[in-house]
């Protein structure tokens, strides 16, 4: 018969140890969940800020282009793309916002590329159903003489 000693049995977990471990795991999960929630909240906040910042940049650039096109009229101009401050101002459909910005970008790009006021008006009418683009084109091209 072998005289070797058998290895000692692993010490069984006492109920108090198991409870302690469960409490630690639970606390760790709560902490991780809070970290995730905080990160998501932070990301949402940053996204909102980035969106508003992008809108401000677009508005500033469009105004700058319009100013270059007609410096004399620049001081009278109102910003034609207002920075978005809150989701409430976006309206029910995001496409409305992009459509409106798209119309202004179209008008600006056409103006920069040399299209006439009439050509831009016609395009805005056919593509965006904008019957009276006067204000927008005044801001980009300067008031109609």
């Amino acid at each position: 018969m072998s005289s070797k000693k058998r290895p000692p049995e692993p010490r069984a977990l006492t109920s108090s140890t198991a409870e302690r471990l469960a409490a630690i795991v639970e606390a760790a999960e709560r902490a991780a969940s809070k970290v995730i929630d905080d990160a998501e909240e932070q990301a949402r906040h940053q996204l909102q800020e980035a969106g508003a910042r992008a809108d401000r940049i677009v508005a500033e650039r469009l105004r700058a282009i319009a100013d270059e096109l007609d410096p004399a009229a620049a001081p009278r101009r109102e910003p034609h793309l207002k920075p978005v401050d809150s989701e409430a101002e976006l309206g029910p459909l995001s496409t409305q916002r992009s459509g409106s910005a798209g119309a202004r970008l179209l008008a600006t790009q056409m103006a920069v590329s040399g299209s006439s006021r009439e050509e831009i008006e016609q395009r805005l009418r056919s593509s965006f159903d904008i019957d009276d683009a006067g204000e927008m084109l005044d801001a980009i091209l300067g008031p109609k003489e």
Partner: protein
Amino acid sequence: MNLTDLQALEQRYLMRTYKRAPVEFVRGEGSLLWDAEGNEYLDFLAGISVCSVGHCNPDVVEAVREQAGRLMHTSNLFYTEPMVRLAERLSESSLGGRVFFSNSGTEANECAIKIARKHAHRRGVEAPEIVSFERDFHGRTYGALSATPALAANPALAPMLPGFRSVPLNDAAALREAVGESTAAVLIEPIQGEAGIYPATDEVLLAAREACDAVGALLIFDEIQTGMGRTGSLWAYEQTPVRPDVLTSAKALGGGMPIGACLTTPEAGEVLEPGDHGSTFAAGPVASAAALAVLEIVDDPALLRGVRERGAELREGLLAHDGVSVVRGRGLMAGVGLADGIDAAAIGADLLERGLIVNVPEPGTLRLLPPLTVDRTQIERAVSAIDAALLSYAA
């Protein structure tokens, strides 16, 4: 050597990739070409929108002659002034970023595809996808071909590159549905050229821009046919409500010399790094000098206004005929939809006999791409020839 001799040599030595019309051209000037027998033709195809400043434009010829006599090639391992000046001019006239030069349109699109895939990998996308429109044409090298659904369906050329999908033209809902987290880019022609001149609507372009922005993908405009003044602005995107991240150009860029370019926004221009892409011949001094001369002519408000005005005259003249049901396109890029039952191929062949060169991209459509320097009299002459061909067909 006459036309019959040429055809015999073609049969023996050239691969059978083209169906050529039985004409040998020997000279060109402005909107006119002459064949070997001295017959004059009014060219309303301009070498498929390549000779936009007219055949043998004196300024382009002089630029090529002067540069060819001084320096023709060094490779891209060294600097040459025409290349760098051309990059500056293209960037400043478009998206403001960087330029990669190539020798053709399909190569320009290859560069755009590389940019899109690498940009997507940086976003953590493992298997990037590129979305294009059905019936788009982006070229015949394998990347561009894979983004050209009609040609990519050819089983004899399989397998195509993975990571390409397409949606019907102007189906904004399908486009939104197709673009997701794995999308690297939406690659589209703002006006489909080879398909028969079909413009993308403002709605679908806005949807594409919005969908790309939502997932961080790039919007790529293939302006190989629409660019360089063809639609009445230097770039077609200038007449749309969006601005792409990447734009490809070729065809008219060199005025007949082979050159292509991939233009980017400042951000997209930072994607490619040394070793990612290259070309031995691209932006050689001669092709670059030609392109600079072309830009000097085309990037001119008076010429671009003329393109829009001649285009309007062309449309008005064509629509006066009962045989014409619709004229699609913008500027001097016109797809003439013929009334039901009229064989466009027969009309095209008749027009060649009458001395007017057009193209028939699909049954029922004539494609007109005259030089941007075409004058009013030549527009009237083309309209009259089409009138006569349609009347003759009806008789």
